[in-house]
């Protein structure tokens, strides 16, 4: 038993943290909030040079093929920002979906360019009024001269406004999991991506208007898409959780520092037990998310059955982040809602990730199924 980070993980952590402090301090994060595309080109290039975009891509496809728990150290640091951008949607979920679902030729063609940051992937799964499960995929392509023609809408597609390539889950049969994956050029005629406005971070609507894609765009085989996506999600979700843990950690540190320094009634407000209670609620959510996430990562890295742990981690982390932010707002009161202070970026991200790739209840039900009650 050893619950400490390895030396190389500690090194990665400190490299990533100093990068974040230098390249993505609070004013940069706040500045990015209103931009249509979540991808800051300069920062993206530098991150690519550090190998961040190919961290889970195997070496034979141009990545560094790190263990998930190594990648989690990085994603915690990114989440502290919370640095937006398609790090997760391209470098993790996109890359793993291609890895799990595509043919060898397709992997060799796509993955090296994802790892280098040249191409930016995102995966389009759910649709208007549907769930995150396979039955949520109803968009059915029409066949025309051996190619596929897409007409319809995908919703809550992360970072689609900065993506160069879409992996689109489409319905190709009547069975519940008869889903296939199509690789679609995000800049193709008829494809429109729009960032949804409001209290949500870079979740997009993607519409397809007579978009024709060649038969070679089918990733892997027909009807194998859901199984591939399921395998990719099992490994990707804990890294999204790690991003959330980083977010909770940052919000916690901000709250402790504020409770120590803000003086009211002649004493630092941390001396008040009501304020302490908010900080304690926060740290309990933080640690719940952290240890649920790390146990899932350990199971995956050591080849143990991990489905139930992964679903539990996503359920716990999805709940933890908004609760952590709520508690932080109680500590900060008015200061916390000033956009320039930086807490609000977490608050909005926490609401966004609550539902993204399945809300807590959805994952709890999948967990119960995996535990075979």
């Amino acid at each position, binding site marked *: 038993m050893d619950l400490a*980070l390895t030396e190389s993980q500690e090194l990665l952590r400190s490299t990533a943290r100093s990068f974040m402090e230098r390249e993505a301090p609070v004013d940069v994060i706040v500045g990015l909030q209103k931009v249509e595309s979540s991808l800051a080109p300069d920062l993206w290039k530098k991150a690519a040079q550090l190998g961040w975009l190919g961290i889970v891509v195997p070496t034979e496809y141009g990545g560094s093929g790190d263990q998930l728990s190594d990648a989690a150290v990085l994603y915690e640091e990114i989440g502290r920002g919370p640095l937006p951008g398609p790090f997760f949607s391209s470098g993790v979920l996109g890359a793993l979906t291609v890895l799990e679902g595509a043919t060898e030729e397709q992997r060799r063609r796509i993955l090296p360019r994802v790892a280098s940051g040249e191409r930016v992937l995102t995966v389009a799964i759910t649709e208007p009024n549907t769930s995150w499960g396979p039955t949520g995929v109803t968009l059915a392509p029409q066949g025309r001269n051996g190619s596929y023609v897409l007409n319809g809408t995908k919703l809550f597609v992360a970072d689609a406004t900065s993506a160069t390539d879409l992996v689109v889950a489409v319905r190709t049969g009547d069975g519940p999991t008869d889903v296939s994956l199509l690789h679609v050029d995000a800049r193709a005629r008829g494809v429109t991506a729009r960032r949804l406005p409001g209290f949500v971070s870079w979740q997009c609507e993607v519409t397809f208007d007579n978009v024709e894609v060649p038969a070679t765009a089918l990733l892997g085989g027909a009807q194998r898409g859901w199984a591939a996506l399921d395998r990719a999600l099992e490994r990707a979700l804990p890294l999204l959780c790690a991003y959330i843990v980083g977010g909770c950690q940052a919000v916690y540190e901000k709250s402790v520092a504020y409770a120590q320094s803000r003086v009211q009634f002649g004493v630092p407000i941390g001396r008040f037990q009501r304020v302490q209670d908010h900080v*304690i609620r926060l740290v309990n959510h933080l640690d719940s998310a952290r*240890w649920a996430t790390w146990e899932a990562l350990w199971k995956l890295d050591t080849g143990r059955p991990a489905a139930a742990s992964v679903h*539990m981690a996503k359920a716990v982390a999805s709940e933890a982040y908004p609760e952590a932010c709520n508690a932080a707002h109680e500590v900060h009161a008015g200061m916390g809602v000033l956009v320039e202070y930086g807490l609000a970026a977490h608050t909005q991200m926490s609401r966004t990730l609550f539902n993204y790739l399945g809300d807590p209840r959805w994952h709890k039900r999948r*967990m119960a199924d995996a535990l075979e*009650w």
Partner: protein
Amino acid sequence: MDFEVTYTEEQQQFRREVRAWLETNVPADVQRTPTSPEDNYQRYLELRAFGRKLGAKGWLYPTAPAKYGGGGLDVDYAIILEEEVDRLDLSLPPYYDSGGRLGSASILVWGTEEQRQAFLPAIYHGEVRTWQLLTEPGAGSDLAGVRTTTAVRDGDEYVIKGQKIFVGSDNGADRIWLIACTAPNGRRHENLSWFMIDANLPGISMQPMELMGTGGEGGTDSGVKQTVFFDDVRVPAFALVGGENKGWTVATTHLELEHGGGGRIGRNRVWDRLLRYCQETKRDGVPLTQQPDVRDSLADIYIKTEITRLFGLRNFYLTYARKAKSYEGPQLSYYRKTAGLWMTGAILEMVGPAALTTDPTWGSSAGFLETQQRNGIVSVHPGGTTDIQRVQMARRIGIGRSTREKAGTVHGAEA
């Protein structure tokens, strides 16, 4: 990270040895729910006899130093022992002996060599069962405010007077330890002393307190605690551990352990039984586990028990690897207690009134759900209330006071 202990072939051999030994030495039917006070006492005697057998092998307190009668085993071996005993629904020690567990830890850190030799072997061999005496009528959460029980030096002895409450369980103890006020006008934290004494000295008397349920920190399964009266009890000065007026310092060690700092590994027995109950019980002809509302509740309950397990594992690791702790001990205690209380509501809603009855036909097996309904409330307060745990957490996080408070030492020196 590695969330599991990995065992060598030698350790696996040890596991086989332990399993075989337990098969021949665990008394038959000792896990039963007692049917009468006489049977309760009989069962206690069986467990004590079993404890002495474990103690003779050094397996009662496996990691305690061998030179004082402990097992002197590495923690990996201790985990094997705990796991094997846990498989049989028993614990180490197999009876309520938190006074031995907590008191011996304080003596190891703060006692003199002579005191260690005098007090520890009997605990580690299972020859004595020990209770801790902390709370008084006027000092519970404010434990440092102990005033009722006083000790006055008289030659080579101290004379103890006063009263302690919420002590032990049923069936008596051989040894007790307590903190008493030795400087009524002294400064807070510098006015208490810590004594390890014989439970049967002249002037000590006990009176049972009937409680709404069980749920002591040490896992007592009895709904009884004691009031202990001291009427000019003369104890040798040798019983004073850590020095006069140093009792609070001695107490920080066992309080840290009692507040969850030692952590825990092992399964959650209530969860196992609850899931089995829901699989075997039907509502409107359908097993509870196939009812969507029950599945949702079970998922929430499962997650709370898992987070409790993970916090326990983390604290166990921190102790095991001798790492410095901060707020983790009281966090585990707070989380476990609030989760347990919350669970009473979740289970009552999910299972209905069957959770409230011990009726052999209409209630749960051996009334385990009824026990949980009571314990979920009762266990919120012993070993520091949930409010006290939060006070501790805040101080250690660095917001409760002007300087950050450190966790109490468990080993005498952490990294």
